[in-house]
């Protein structure tokens, strides 16, 4: 018999206990600011101190060998090798204080692609269904796009991997139906087309419809669909597939040959460049979440190939690669994408996210390069309701740690969902059927205009 001050349990605390058990009121719907997201994933980890968070006054062992240049935003200066981008900084928000503790590509990559902390900082993190889904899959589950013939979530052109496939690229426990439409093809190639939307040789859409009719005839006899929800689901997929195959809109959305040559040149005739162009085209057609993977490998070994992971191993030093490849291609593609969206009046409703899975060591290593640095890195956002010409968060003298306003990947995730009009506290059910929130962070309200 616990005598805990008479009134204790029965008096003051009981109402609070009862309150806790009450159902939460349905959330007030959030008005979305962004109709779609273009997620430009910079696999390998771009260096913050060389690009968006330069520290010219830091000691020589730290600071970038590159100079800064002024931009259209007086509050920020960026790398001299990004002159075209500098003219667009008045439309971007830069967050300089992203931080986490995952030092490995696969664990950090998963964190970046899902906004959920991995169970361990394991480079061999296995892509198992107990891990969380990609952003786009969550969007497909909770707020799918409204164009019936187009998928909500499209990703291309590479599967990102470092040894093993990086988790966070598909729907995981949400189920295959929320997987992205993944296109493992080069948008820069002359015969770029979606295999799904291409009819086999000798078949036309009418014949496919006719075949579907025969299929329905056979199914009518057995009435197996009455017995199984799965069978009914499968049947619906056939209708959906046919609708998409029949859809001029779907076919057009993926047809880059419809873009003018000068614009294709402006984005650059590279896989990534045409990938950015495709992203604009898809957003325009109604695809809600497009992920463009910069490279399949973490890279850093060759010019013109691979991601941002320039450690300087085997004499493949960082700066020639960054100057000869990463920065020029970024300067060609990112401002072009922003300009293209802006000229079509789409920028205010399209959120562009440019980020990698971590930054790079503020102290230059003995290979005249930089290694992984998750403790403080930068992210660039534009459009879709973020502030124009804004810098959030301040890092320390050497861009090693956040000094003011640190932001976790969870917070960034919450911000993205918030901008899309999805409550970041919405629950989904994991593999063990436990309700879990889609983000365990809070939106960075200050970056939202």
């Amino acid at each position, binding site marked *: 018999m616990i005598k805990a001050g008479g009134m204790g349990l029965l008096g003051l605390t009981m109402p609070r206990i009862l309150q806790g058990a009450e159902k939460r009121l349905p959330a007030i719907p959030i008005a979305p600011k962004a109709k779609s997201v273009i997620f430009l994933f910079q696999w390998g980890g771009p260096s913050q101190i060389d690009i968006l968070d330069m520290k010219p006054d830091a000691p020589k062992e730290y600071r970038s060998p590159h100079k800064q240049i002024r931009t259209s935003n007086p509050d920020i200066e960026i790398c001299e090798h990004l002159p075209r981008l500098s003219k667009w900084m008045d439309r971007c928000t830069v967050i300089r204080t992203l931080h986490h503790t995952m030092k490995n590509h696969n664990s950090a990559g998963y964190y970046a692609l899902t906004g959920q902390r991995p169970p361990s900082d394991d480079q061999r993190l*296995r*892509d*198992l*269904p107990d891990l969380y889904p990609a952003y786009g899959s969550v969007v497909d589950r909770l707020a799918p796009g409204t164009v019936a013939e187009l998928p909500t979530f499209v990703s291309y052109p590479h599967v990102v991997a470092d040894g093993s496939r990086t988790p966070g690229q598909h729907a995981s426990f949400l*189920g*295959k*139906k929320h*997987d992205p*439409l993944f296109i493992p093809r080069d948008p820069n190639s002359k015969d770029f087309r979606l*295999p*799904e*939307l*291409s*009819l*086999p*040789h*000798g*078949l036309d859409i009418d*014949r*496919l419809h*006719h*075949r579907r009719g*025969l*299929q329905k*005839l*056979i*199914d*009518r*006899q*057995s009435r*197996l*669909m*009455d*017995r*199984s929800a*799965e*069978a009914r*689901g*499968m*049947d619906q*997929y*056939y209708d*959906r*597939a*046919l609708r*998409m*195959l029949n859809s001029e809109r779907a076919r057009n959305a993926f047809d880059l040959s419809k873009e003018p040559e000068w614009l294709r040149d402006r984005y650059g005739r590279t896989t990534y460049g045409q990938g950015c162009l495709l992203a604009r085209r898809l957003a325009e057609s109604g695809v809600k979440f497009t992920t463009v993977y910069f490279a399949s490998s973490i890279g850093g070994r060759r010019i013109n190939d691979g991601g941002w992971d320039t450690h300087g191993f085997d004499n493949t030093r960082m700066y020639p690669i960054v100057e000869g490849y990463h920065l020029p291609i970024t300067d060609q593609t990112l401002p072009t994408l922003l300009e293209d969206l802006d000229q079509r009046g789409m920028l205010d409703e399209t959120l562009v996210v440019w980020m990698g899975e971590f930054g790079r060591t503020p102290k230059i290593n003995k290979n005249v390069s930089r290694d992984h640095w998750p403790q403080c890195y930068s992210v660039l956002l534009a459009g879709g309701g973020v502030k124009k010409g804004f810098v959030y968060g301040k890092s320390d003298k050497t861009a090693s740690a956040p000094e003011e306003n640190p932001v976790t990947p969870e917070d960034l995730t919450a911000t993205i969902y918030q901008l899309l009009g999805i409550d970041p506290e919405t629950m989904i059910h994991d593999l063990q059927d436990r309700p879990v929130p889609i983000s365990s962070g809070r939106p960075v309200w200050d970056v939202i205009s």
Partner: protein
Amino acid sequence: MVQANRIWYNLMGRGLVNPVDDFRPTNPASHPGLLEALAKDFADHSYDLRHLILRITTSRTYQLSTEADSTNNEDSENYARASMTRLPAEVLLDAAHSALGQPGKFKQYKNIKRALALPGIKGAFLENNPHHDDRFLHLFGKPPRLLNSDAERLNEISLAQAFEMTSGETLSTLLKAKGNRLDQLLSDKLSAEEILAELYWTAINRPPTTEEQEVLLQHIADRPGKERRGALEDISWALLNSKEFLFRH
């Protein structure tokens, strides 16, 4: 007990412990007495798998139909009726090949002609340029064997699968393959009725109904001469995409 559960899972479509291989105190079997009895019986017969399979397949539970009525429609774990599940990837691919009389082809395993005989996952998961048969397996749920659990295989259905069957390479290659069953049937100079019956029995193990017979014979008749093969391709496609073919029922 784990092995008994796995065999039960393979035969019944759902393990007594579900997900299969997820043995832990917080995930008890749906019928613990049955699982223990099966395990004991298995052990008592020197762990003879054939005995265990015989035991299960001769039971009334196994032989239940998947037909649903108002009393068992909602049931998913009490075996009031058999569960209707999509065929696993390898079985589906092999069945399609078999129905059209064509051997399979898998990168990395040159002499293997059936998906069920594949010794590993190299073709489907480690190959940069897989054959469409390998891609099919990957798409329909063949697991990469990263886990020591049969639950790694997910026989879910997806839009991508519907695309593969509708406009993808695997099925259309099979249908068009020279010398496949369709060509054989045509060269054997059988009547349309005989060909139709043959297609039905090979694919879904029953004769066509009156309605099917009427519509499909008309379909063939409307496409004479050179077009007849196309008509047979259409019918074969419909058969291989029918629920009777894709699902265990």
